[in-house]
């Protein structure tokens, strides 16, 4: 009950935030030089004023900005993301076509990074001050400091070109005609490189955070209590320290999972992954306003969604949250 009302409250706040985002982004994007008509005229390799005027009219760009904004917001309120005149399709369809690929990539990367990150953090904290700790911390720092796109290029070079183990780009074998399980396997094969590269950075973040958090919790009084009970270190670490140490990691992870959904532009570009990060970048360059705004809106909605999910997860882990004391 309490959870339901909190979620409802969050949703209402979220709606307001989203609306504000729509307006801000609308103004931002229209402040950029050039417009979709100019881009399309440019691409056509030839254009005259009739052509450009036609395009502007078709896109509704001939109207004053506030009218355009008013119309757009009006549409958004009715859950209509508008139409991409450039791509000749409703924005919602365009995004939905891409969203699954993005979710697959980012959630896998996120899962990998969280899993390995926490595991490495725990392992490092258990060996604190010894060689094992230094090795793990060193690796994490290196992952953290390596530019993502550089790692991506290297990964393609090594695993795809030199070793030929994994496909270097794309979402699945084009025209492979796979169905069912073999299709899933095929996608999985394509997923490995991009998901791992994308995950490296976050893995480093989680490793370091888990390690620090584990060490901090290990100093707490209740850990002493647990040791006084005669529990083995292993159990203490897992049951008492880890669970408490996970709380800040979960908070951060929730924030990042949401961010990831809208933000894997670099990975999607290098690996030719058909996700919405790329759609965003391409729409920006083409000044495909509606699509760009749509992507922003959807990814902001994802961020909010993930924040809510994080809160729920947090409640599961920490009984103190949401209880009336």
């Amino acid at each position: 009950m309490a959870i339901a009302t909190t979620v409802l409250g969050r949703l209402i706040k979220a709606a307001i935030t989203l609306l504000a985002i729509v307006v801000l982004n609308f103004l931002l994007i229209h402040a950029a030089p050039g417009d979709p008509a100019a881009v399309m005229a440019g691409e056509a390799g030839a254009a005259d004023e009739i052509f450009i005027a036609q395009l502007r009219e078709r896109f509704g760009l001939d109207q004053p900005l506030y009218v355009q904004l008013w119309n757009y917001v009006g549409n958004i309120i009715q859950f209509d993301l508008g139409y991409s005149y450039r791509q000749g399709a409703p924005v919602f369809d365009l995004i939905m076509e891409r969203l699954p690929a993005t979710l697959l990539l980012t959630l896998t990367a996120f899962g990998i990074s969280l899993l390995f990150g926490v595991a490495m953090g725990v392992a490092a904290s258990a060996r604190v001050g010894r060689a094992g700790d230094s090795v793990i911390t060193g690796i994490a720092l290196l992952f953290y400091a390596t530019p993502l796109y550089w790692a991506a290029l290297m990964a393609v070079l090594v695993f795809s070109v030199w070793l030929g183990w994994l496909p270097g780009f794309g979402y699945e074998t084009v025209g492979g005609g796979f169905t069912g399980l073999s299709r899933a396997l095929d996608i999985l094969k394509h997923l490995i490189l991009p998901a791992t590269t994308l995950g490296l950075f976050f893995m480093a973040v989680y490793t370091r955070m888990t390690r620090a958090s584990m060490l901090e919790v290990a100093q707490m009084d209740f850990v002493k209590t647990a040791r006084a009970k005669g529990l083995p270190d292993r159990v203490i670490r897992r049951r008492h320290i880890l669970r408490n140490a996970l709380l800040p990691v979960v908070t951060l992870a929730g924030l990042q999972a949401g961010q990831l959904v809208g933000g894997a532009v670099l990975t999607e570009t290098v690996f030719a992954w058909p996700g919405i990060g790329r759609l965003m970048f391409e729409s920006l360059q083409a000044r495909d306003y509606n699509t760009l705004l749509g992507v922003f809106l959807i990814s902001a909605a994802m961020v909010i969604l993930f924040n809510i999910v994080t809160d729920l997860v947090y409640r599961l882990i920490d009984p103190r949250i949401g209880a009336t004391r």
Partner: protein
Amino acid sequence: MSDTVLRIENLTLDLPSGADRAHAVHDLSFTLARGEVLCVVGESGSGKSMTASALMGLLPGAVTIGGGRAIFGGRDVLALPEAERRALRGAKIGMIFQEPMTALNPLMRIGDQISEVFEAHGLLTPTERRARALALIEEVGLPDPKKIIRAYPFQLSGGQRQRAMIAMALALEPEILIADEPTTALDVTTQAQILDLIAEIRQRHGMAVMFITHDFGVVAEIADRVIVMRHGEMVETGPAAEVLAAPKHDYTRRLLDAIPSNAVPRPDRVTAAPALEIRNLRKTYRTGGGWGRAAREVRAIDDVSLTIAKGEVLGLVGESGSGKSTLGRAVVRLVDPDSGRILVGGEDMAALDANALRRARRRVQMVFQDPYASLNPRARILRSISEGPVAQGVAKRDAEARARELLEVVGLGADAADRYPHEFSGGQRQRIGIARALAMDPDLIIADEAVSALDVSIQAQVLDLLRDLRARLGLSLLFITHDLRVAAQLCDRIAVMQKGRLVEIGPVDEVFLNPRDPYTRSLLDAVPGASWADGGSPARAEAI
């Protein structure tokens, strides 16, 4: 002794280089007999906790065993390999810690935390563990065991948590129970209940108890034998009655002298004009409100009226959460009351605007409970003290000169002004806090638990200082405390609060000797060691 369970021989614990001294504990030897309660007393930092940790094998990494043996069951527990030590922990030696708020895992149910003890030693099946946990919860007197077993620590009060801790320590009926200040953080009534519980359990299970405390009242209540420690060394040991009645060592004597005696002086009735008048004050806290959740309401002050005369010391007592601090903070408007009036020297504090309030503030100052937290760690003492007067318009040079003067007054020496808070001890810091309050030249000082955090010996110094200042400067004082003995020492009148209401107010002797309200009586009954102080104190005429 024939049934000795534990024998410590020449235990030395080394501190890392750079610590304030070389050894946490030096050349300590003592024995613990079956069924006996051994109290270990001493000032903060004297090595009490380290001794206990060494026995449990839970020393912090920086502290190492420098030598000595601890014979338990024929073996030296200090030399055992980790696995065997672990087998002892919980099973043969149980331990309770000081801080009930943090000593339990906040994310685990109480029942699981108790069952875990059996699991750690590979005993019983899960269902049996649960049944035993339930029985233990019942045994330590927790209400509604079925509910408690499923509760999380945050749903329990401090006393209840401490009981849960005891249940854990008792689970495997250890031969030795080590209790490291298990009642220090609790209020008097709860403290008394826990002490009773430990005594009762000791009798029922016949275990040996090593009880660490710095409170001689507690010692008098439960100890069979006493060890007095100082700077890591044992300075005196013997049967409790003997040590309390006829301390041999100088240090012990000083510790005992520092304890406020229960003698209640008959104060001069003060009749001067009121320095502070509180009329029908109310304050209700509402928290957790918002989307769909019912707000929780706490009536922290419920229709309280009282006055303090010029030059009078009014003690405000009551158990934890009764609203004492809220009242004190409302007077200085750190808390905004819901209704009622606060008149300081006849001026209504609540009616002032921000600027007028800033000016009026100098008339009422506060000395805070925690000497560490109440000083800005990044500011020199001089700045901390002179900042207020400067803000009130005093010339900087004058304010600083006065600050140095005041440091002399509180017995610190003017050169303290140029140092940082972390370079002082707790007691010294508390004096600085008093100097800061005095610097504003107030009519009234509110001292909220101003001595609670201090060691008994330092506590005595600060109380002396306050008494002295009142005599010299004619200050009025609202003295908030939960320690009735301290209150008895200093105050002219006593006000007793319960659940936000003022249940009794009157001259200190009347309230203590003839409490009218049943709540006041129960508070007085709960004071540990009351009977000992009653019999042993030289000033027994007016004792409670």
